[in-house]
């Protein structure tokens, strides 16, 4: 079985924010509006973290795209009381929206704070009509949501591959953020397949994962910047 994972080359990333936008559009993540946003309820399944290092004039700004890390040992699924979040055998940590009771325990338990809660009913202007991604369900209010590695694309890819009668190849399945990254800083593939780019890149001496000491075994690797 494949172990889907991502490698983000920080040396290539410029922090433009396209992955964030692509994610919002692809996953039909609603726009919450100014009032809700001011309360800190913006939904960003993909986010960019930025930090400043040093003091003027020797300052460095670092940007770090942050999807869900799809941990191999996810702390979120252990605590879910109703199996609304689970890890499948391809390593994708997913959320079942119709199952979620909205207790937000997974959100609280995630050491990376990648889970978001739909505090209000998602709304789009009426004029928008059906112009949403039909591959992804629109969340009801009151459930937790997260980055799914665009798992709907995996299913589409599998169907496509089945029709064409071949094996799944690298690049058949990539999440929206990876697909849209203008600087090609993001790689996606099977971490266990030595032919896939990601499995080679993760061995790079520049590769690291966030908070490896927690033992969560994230499946998103970063390649550090070259100074």
């Amino acid at each position, binding site marked *: 079985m494949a172990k889907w994972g991502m490698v983000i080359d920080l040396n290539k*990333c*410029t*922090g*433009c*924010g*396209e992955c*964030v*936008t*692509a994610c*919002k*559009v*692809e996953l039909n993540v609603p*726009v*919450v*509006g*100014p009032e809700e*946003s*001011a*309360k800190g309820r*913006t939904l960003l399944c993909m986010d960019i973290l*930025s930090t*400043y290092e040093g*003091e*003027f*004039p020797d*300052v460095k*700004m670092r*940007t770090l795209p942050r999807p869900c890390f799809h941990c191999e040992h996810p702390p979120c699924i*252990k605590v879910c009381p109703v*199996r609304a979040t*689970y*890890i*499948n055998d391809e390593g994708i940590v*997913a*959320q*079942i929206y119709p199952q979620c009771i909205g207790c937000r325990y997974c959100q609280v338990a995630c050491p990376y704070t990648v889970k978001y809660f739909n505090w209000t009913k*998602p709304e*789009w*202007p*009426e*004029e*928008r*009509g*059906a*112009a949403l991604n*039909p*591959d*992804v*369900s*629109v969340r*009801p209010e009151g459930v937790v949501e997260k980055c*799914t590695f665009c798992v*709907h694309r995996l299913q*589409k890819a599998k169907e496509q591959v089945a029709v064409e009668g071949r094996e799944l190849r690298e690049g058949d399945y990539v999440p929206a953020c990876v697909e*849209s*990254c*203008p*600087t090609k*800083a993001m790689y996606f593939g099977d971490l266990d397949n030595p032919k896939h780019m990601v499995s080679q890149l993760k061995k790079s001496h520049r590769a690291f994962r966030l908070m490896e000491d927690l033992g969560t075994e994230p499946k998103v690797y970063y390649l550090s910047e*070259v100074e």
Partner: protein
Amino acid sequence: MEISRREFLKYLGITTAGVSLTGLGCDSMWSVPDEVFEKIGGAPRIETWETSVCGLCSGGCGIKVRLIDDIPVRILGNPLHAVNRGGVCPMAEAGIEALYNPDRIRQPLQRIGERGEDKWQEISWDEAMQTVVSRLQGLREKNAAHKLAFFTGQDNNLSSRLNERFMQAFGSPNLFVFDQSKPSTVATYLTQGHKSALAYNFKDIEMLINFGADFLDEGPSPIRFNQLYSEFRNRGEGRNVKVVHVDSRLSRTASNSNQWLPAKPGTMAALALGIANVVIKDGNYDKRYIKTHSFGFDDWRDPSGNSRIGFKALVEDNYYPEKVAKITGVPARRIVEVAREFGAAKSALVLAGGQAINSSNGVYTLWAIECLNALKGNYADNGVISVPKAPPFREPPKINVDRVAANGLKRPDLLQSISDICFADDAVAFLPKTMLENQPYQIQVLFLANANPVFNAVNQSDFAAVLEEIPFIVSFSSSLDETSVYADLVLPDHVYLEKHDVAYSVPMVDFSHFGMQQPVVAPLYNTRHTGDVILQIAQSLGGTVASSLPWADTKTYLDDHLRGVYETGAGTIFSERMDEDWLKFLKERGWQVFEYSTFDEFRQVLLDKGGWWNPFPDPTDFRRLVKTPSKKYEFYSQVFEEEIKRHLQTTKVSKDEENAVLQKWKVEARGDLAFLPHYEAQKLRDNEGRFPLQLLPFKLITNITGEGSNLPMLQELFGLLTRNYWQSWVEINPETAHDHKISEGDMVRIISPKGSLEVVARLIPGIMPGVVYVPFGLGHKANGRYAKGIGVNPYEIFLEEFDHLSGMSSLTSTKVIVEKGNRKEMA
């Protein structure tokens, strides 16, 4: 913790784990389907893709639109497009919301309230057209064709050339372009005598010094620069480009550079000359080029035998690193390091933008920076800098000018009568000066298309006053922006996803190219392509106006142009797996890459692939391009001397006359110095220290033009990196903030002599102490529910200062005080 997924799902009775593929995707066991959810269900879901060009800024990025059952649902980059190569910025991605924006104008509107009151009545197209045509006919009958003015926005597409053509055929010289991202050409003109926009080839450069151009956030085509900057540091060991960024704010461009030199705002000229000083001292410049192709580098004698000072002496005497360090705040050691590296680099490029241009000493700053390029010989034939040709469009038939039009065109345009600016080309900001006094004549009819000076000019209130006075204003906007609310009639344009156009010559791209914009969806509302409307007006006006614009609609007009490309067979349509080198290889061996049997076939392929490019441009021959009196690159600008002569309409200028003119143009230097690049300190009004801080704006990739504010997605991601969604903020250095007793998240009031703003404070170490930054883009007073009343517009409190050589607004001349406000920010 292992769950077999299939079993798990079987158990849960759902097939797709929360994301639906077919049907509703959620099992009936639990699902409480939402209305939106149901809306998605049901249809057959046929997925198609259409290519087009993004129309949200002048970057002209190629896009690929995903349609489900002919409904556009997502916008991606067109990977074949030569400019953006598959990447798009957040703005383009959010473009889908422009299409479905609930505040779009759906029908021609006629004003029923007061000017600017935003009260409208829907009218039919016929009625609206009739009104416009009768007004225009009235002008021509009175032999006053010049009293029609046209304010447009971006001008690098073919439909805006249609506007130009219309204005000429009609007989008015008053077409003005309000494009913020247009690079200034004044410095180029002063040194080289031509006004061509320059483009840059980054392929072989080793070093890049960027003076203040926030390419990664502002563009033009910011995504192209994001790709370039990323590539600069990933070319491989030893081949990476060293990028030095000069700016007072650690922008994303600065942080993606190797080195950041924080120079005080308005002092970049000094820094550039300081670098020149070291380079010249080290003798690390292109001596051959300087010797044979430049003028005024060494001291020289004029025809009357007077000794004149040259660039070298000027720089060596005045801009040694220690002095420059004092002016700019950049340590001398750093200046020397950077200059040594710059000098040593085999191929190095210097670029400028942002506060280097938009400051009261902008022309001299740009000039000084350009001289660094000259020192590296970049205006020779090393291919680093070029002037790309426009694509070989077929030239449209000659414009017929009747008597009325000829009379109109003879009249000076609105800017020519302004005497206190040197070059009026980019001086649209000066329009209110003449228009308010009805000089040289009063404008009777004004057309507005994509121009929004009431929002994005520093003298926006003057523009508003101008609009109040104009008898008849027609807006072609698709949304009621700040400027359009002053219109009498709104003839709504399609949104870019609904119309045909050709976008070409994206600024700074070094090869000729164009992208095909095509409707990916039938117009949602009763709107019309502005090109069609212009053509129809021309037809209704009849006579030479009609015969000069003989096309039935924009599409035929565009096709007519494209035929030229088809017939010359130059370049190639964007294509898969055909990289530049491979195409070059083919071309060099004389093979035509693609051939099309008919024009229609060519056109179809163009639309499918998204555009055309010529990856192998002929190198620019600057020797032929340079049109200075000396026929060389002029460190000492004789062009400027000529300009003064032309201004005074004499051939001989006395010292006093010259000084008077310089005085008028707010140049402080006198004598030779005025004709050489030099540093002039900005004069900042700070009323005896009452305003201790300097206010500057910056832009964000999430809303490059400020016109993306009516897209909720962009509003929500506006301050993505600082997490200021749906709001403006001020960036302050922590030290400065401490001095002013401001802490992170405080509501603060920024007060300039002109007004005040209330925003949230963000303490950011990447800001120079003493300078505060407010993002541009929010603070709309109109433009729909998502834009109106969100955030603040810093331009409201900027002083109306200008660079009187270029007429550009100065954004570095405003001093402010920042006070702690009353309420604490929630969140």
